């Protein structure tokens, strides 16, 4: 287990090499370094994970170094491994490695090939810091690091200003959440005096009674950060636009890992949320609202990647929902299975998009199933898992969430079940329109092992990834891992049948795909569709409520009242500096005289004091 430090070290090294060479490496060496460092990291992670599980320990810490020791202040840099960080680490390095391999094929011939991999490696390093850090400071560093990489990679195709806008939007919107999170951390530090996560959690349990306003405030502020990073209501608007980045980026950052950081944060600080039922209800409600809204929106989208983006929001909504209803382990379980099948869906979509020369409109696709066999089968498996059809990985995790929500509140169960139905519907719609019916664009399949191998491996994971459960979580999360409480038979069967009903229903509505192409809708339905299409009008809402007033205020205050205060300080400093500088005459007699005056002043002070 002493190799733990190597896991983040490899991607960091990869980043340093790729960054230092500034794109002078060819594509092959850059691929070898970019994906190879991830491979080594994944190997190390597998080794450490095996050792950790077989050792039977629940926690392993590795202090890399202490920064300084001044009096009692001794900040150290420590990695912390437990069941939760183990799962996250496995997902990040494993899925991350596959996506890196895929990217070596996908990005072939693009400008900035090695820049792309340097950012990707940096991202993985930051993400690993986020989940392995033992104190909030390191976690926050990783948190901001992944945000930065996300910004850089969304705007990767920087010749198009729209991509730059999308990158800025993602950065600014998540910043709102980050600010809340930073405030939460400050409050936690002020109240408990420690940045160490475990110490803070046990301190919180010892200090505050259940439902104390302080702990509620901290939990809600941390939730703010989680909501921003994980694209949940009301900070969800950045994720669909983030699809401007290359598809492997969408798969890695905006599906499998970074956007689930919020789920990790809440699971990591679960003791705080357990102390505040208000905060927990809030988590569940936000999750439910998001999964509902985004599932409806996904039904109306026409851009393949945006469908997947809304679907991601909705699935993360499930995770929040699970955290809120107390199905902690199920949330992390779903995080893992979602990473498998959503990465698979994105990569398969990437292959489709690549074959169609970067065409993303599903209505210009169709009939591709004969020509793009591997992407088709992958997408089929991915969608089955997304819709949670029985025996796929998504079924195990989502089913568990739904069942657990029944004992929390049957109304929540009902809401989540309807959304599960919607998930099946939009999955069928996507498959039907993209792969069946009339072929509208001629595909040119790129046949390369590095494009197909990750799809095959991820397909296996998306199918079988849920069969084994997640034993190490039991020691970390309060619900004691993934167990199957006895539920009424009708509930179990009913819950399991929802996706099947959804798929059958979807088949009748969306097959053959021609039905979706030629539809005469009434004006009312059209405007409803437009409303759903725009993501329930959140962008417009924020533009009117926040952007416009903000711009107006900024325009009104264009001479900046606050700034004049600083200008004043500058003026005073400059004036004083010029005044004192006059004493530096360069004349020896004045210097000597000044020394005598100085001595006299010192002696005068002595006389006055004594």
């Amino acid at each position, binding site marked *: 287990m002493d190799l733990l430090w190597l896991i983040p070290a490899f991607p960091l090294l990869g980043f340093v090499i790729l960054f230092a060479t500034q794109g002078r490496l060819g594509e092959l060496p850059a691929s070898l370094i970019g994906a190879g460092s991830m491979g080594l990291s994944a190997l190390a992670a597998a080794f450490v994970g095996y050792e950790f599980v077989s050792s039977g320990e629940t926690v392993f810490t590795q202090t890399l*170094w202490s*920064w*300084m020791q001044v009096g009692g202040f001794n900040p150290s840099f420590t990695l912390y491994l437990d069941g939760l960080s183990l799962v996250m680490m496995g997902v990040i390095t494993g899925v991350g490695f596959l996506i890196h391999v895929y990217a070596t094929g996908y990005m072939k011939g693009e400008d900035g090939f090695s820049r792309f991999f340097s950012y990707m490696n940096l991202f993985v390093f930051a993400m690993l810091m986020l989940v392995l850090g033992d104190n909030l400071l390191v976690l926050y560093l990783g948190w901001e690091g992944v945000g930065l990489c996300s910004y850089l990679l969304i705007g990767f195709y920087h010749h198009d200003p729209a991509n730059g806008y999308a990158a800025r939007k993602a950065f600014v919107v998540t910043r709102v959440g980050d600010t809340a999170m930073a405030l939460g951390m400050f409050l936690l530090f002020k109240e408990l005096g420690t940045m160490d996560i475990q110490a803070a959690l046990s301190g919180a349990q010892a200090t505050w009674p259940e439902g104390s306003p302080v702990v509620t405030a901290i939990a809600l502020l941390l939730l703010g950060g989680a909501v921003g990073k994980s694209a949940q209501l009301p900070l969800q608007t950045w994720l669909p636009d983030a699809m401007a980045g290359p598809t492997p980026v969408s798969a890695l950052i905006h599906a499998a890992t970074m956007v689930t950081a919020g789920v990790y944060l809440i699971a990591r600080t679960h003791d705080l949320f357990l102390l505040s039922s208000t905060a927990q209800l809030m988590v569940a409600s936000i999750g439910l609202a998001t999964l509902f809204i985004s599932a409806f929106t996904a039904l109306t989208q026409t851009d393949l990647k945006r469908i997947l983006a809304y679907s991601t929001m909705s699935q993360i909504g499930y995770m929040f929902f699970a955290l809120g209803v107390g199905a902690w382990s199920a949330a992390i379980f779903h995080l893992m299975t979602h990473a498998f099948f959503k990465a698979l869906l994105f990569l398969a979509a990437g292959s489709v998009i690549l074959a169609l020369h970067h065409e993303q409109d599903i209505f210009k696709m169709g009939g591709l199933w004969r020509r793009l066999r591997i992407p088709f089968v992958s997408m089929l498996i991915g969608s089955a898992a997304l819709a949670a059809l029985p025996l796929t990985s998504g079924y195990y995790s989502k089913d568990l969430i739904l069942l657990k929500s029944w004992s929390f509140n049957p109304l929540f169960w009902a809401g989540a079940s309807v959304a599960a139905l919607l998930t099946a519907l939009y999955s069928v719609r996507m498959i039907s329109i993209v792969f069946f019916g009339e072929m509208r664009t001629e595909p040119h399949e790129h046949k390369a092992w590095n494009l197909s191998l990750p799809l095959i491996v991820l397909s296996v994971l998306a199918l079988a990834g849920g069969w084994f459960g997640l034993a190490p979580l039991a020691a970390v999360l309060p619900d004691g891992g993934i167990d199957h409480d006895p539920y009424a038979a009708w509930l179990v069967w009913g819950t399991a049948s929802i996706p099947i009903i959804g798929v059958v229903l979807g088949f009748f509505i969306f097959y053959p795909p021609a039905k979706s192409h030629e539809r005469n809708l009434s004006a009312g339905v059209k405007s409803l569709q437009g409303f759903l299409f725009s993501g329930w009008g959140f962008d417009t809402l924020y533009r009117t409520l926040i952007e416009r007033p903000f711009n107006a205020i900024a325009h009104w205050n264009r001479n900046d009242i606050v700034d004049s205060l600083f200008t004043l300080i500058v003026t005073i400093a400059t004036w004083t500096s010029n005044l*004192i500088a006059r004493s*530096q005459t360069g004349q020896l007699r*004045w*210097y000597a005289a000044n*020394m005598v005056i100085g001595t006299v002043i010192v002696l005068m*002070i002595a006389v006055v004091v*004594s």
Partner: protein
Amino acid sequence: MSTAEYLALAPLLTISGGLTIMLLVIAFFRSHRVAHVSALVTLAATVLSILTCTPDSPQVVLDLLVVDGFAGYFMLLFAAMGIITCTLAYRYLEGRSGGLEEFYILVVTATIGAMTMAMAQHYATLLLGLEILSISLYTMIAYPQETHAPLEAATKYLILSGVASTTMLFGIALIFMASGDLYFSSLMADASGPYHTLGQLMLLTGLAFKLSLVPFHMWTPDVYQGAPAPVTGYIATVSKGALFALLLRFALVSDVLSVSAVFVALSTIAIASMIIGNVLALMQQNLKRLLAYSSIAHMGYMMIALLAISALTDTATAVESAMVYLLGYFLMTATAFGVISIQSNAKENGDAELISHYSGLFWRNPLLASVLTVTMLSLAGMPLTVGFIAKFYLFAAGVESNLWALLWALVIGSAISVYYYIKVIFTMTLNEQPDSYAHPETTWSTRSTLYALGLAVLVLGFYPTPVIELIGQLLSGFSD
């Protein structure tokens, strides 16, 4: 003298022996390279002897000197700085006229003086060390003969130093009158008598001049500007470091800070240095003068560690913070003047001293510009550089001893300082390129020394533990 005493004195004997050999070599065989190399060998041998011969517990030699881990640490810094100065000076001097060989002898004698001060526990040794150091420095400053600026600087320094030394001697005489002996520890008996207080204050005035504390600071920018860049770096580090080491030991042994008049006077001087030093640097266009003013401020910061001794029951924290700060200050200052020296190699006479000379350095020489950038950030005290660690230690020592007025001055001074340090970095990113400074000639040894220093500034900001542990170890045998 016993064997133990000889052994403890080994560094001083090594460097003096080396000096004698150097004198003979230069007398018979005039070669710049040979003089340079023999100085390096002498100083390297000194470093080795310090590392091997520093005794675990304090060893008093002939009543006048005391050799302990504390002295060893500072001697190591001085000798190392001597090596760096010789390395930087080689290429710098070669482009200039006049006999070059004696320069290295002066560096070695100055280092002897500084080492003596680090070991002094008696006013006679204090004066001896100080004068060996100062007289070597006057000549080193005046070494280049192309322009009259170095000569002017040396003259100013000589005369003002004379004033300071006289004041100091008068103070020592008063102390002798009151106590009857010349050991630092003799003050203990009756520290607050009127003659004592007067003597202490006059002594401290003299020391404050050498440390260029306000209001005895006026010589600093003129001398820094006039002296050749490698020598300025030496003055800024070794001369001040030796004075500070001496002051630290003096304060620890003599308990002088328990006299409230001394404490108040030194606090006032420290606060004034921090504020006025930084304010003066604000509008400065000359990098050497800027660094002079900044050194005034840094000396003010370091006084916090000194003053913390008085208020702390556990003086180790204060001494430790002073030692950490001095190391950081040495690294940063040596690097900054190293960059100036290298850039000055491209000039026929004088130095590349205007900030505008560095405009566009990032595009001409990115590595050198990065080194200077790291140094400037470190001087400003940015986290993840050694400057931050050093300042943090000072702050911790100050907080523990409740020196709030001084800490406020530290905060305000640091805030002001960020502006002028950043200004240097900003200038380096500009696009203008004065042709004459485009490609200074350098040797690989100069370059690698400089890169190593810049790296140390950075690495010790991440990972200062080894140094901190070393200091703790050295201080474990140090009695106060």
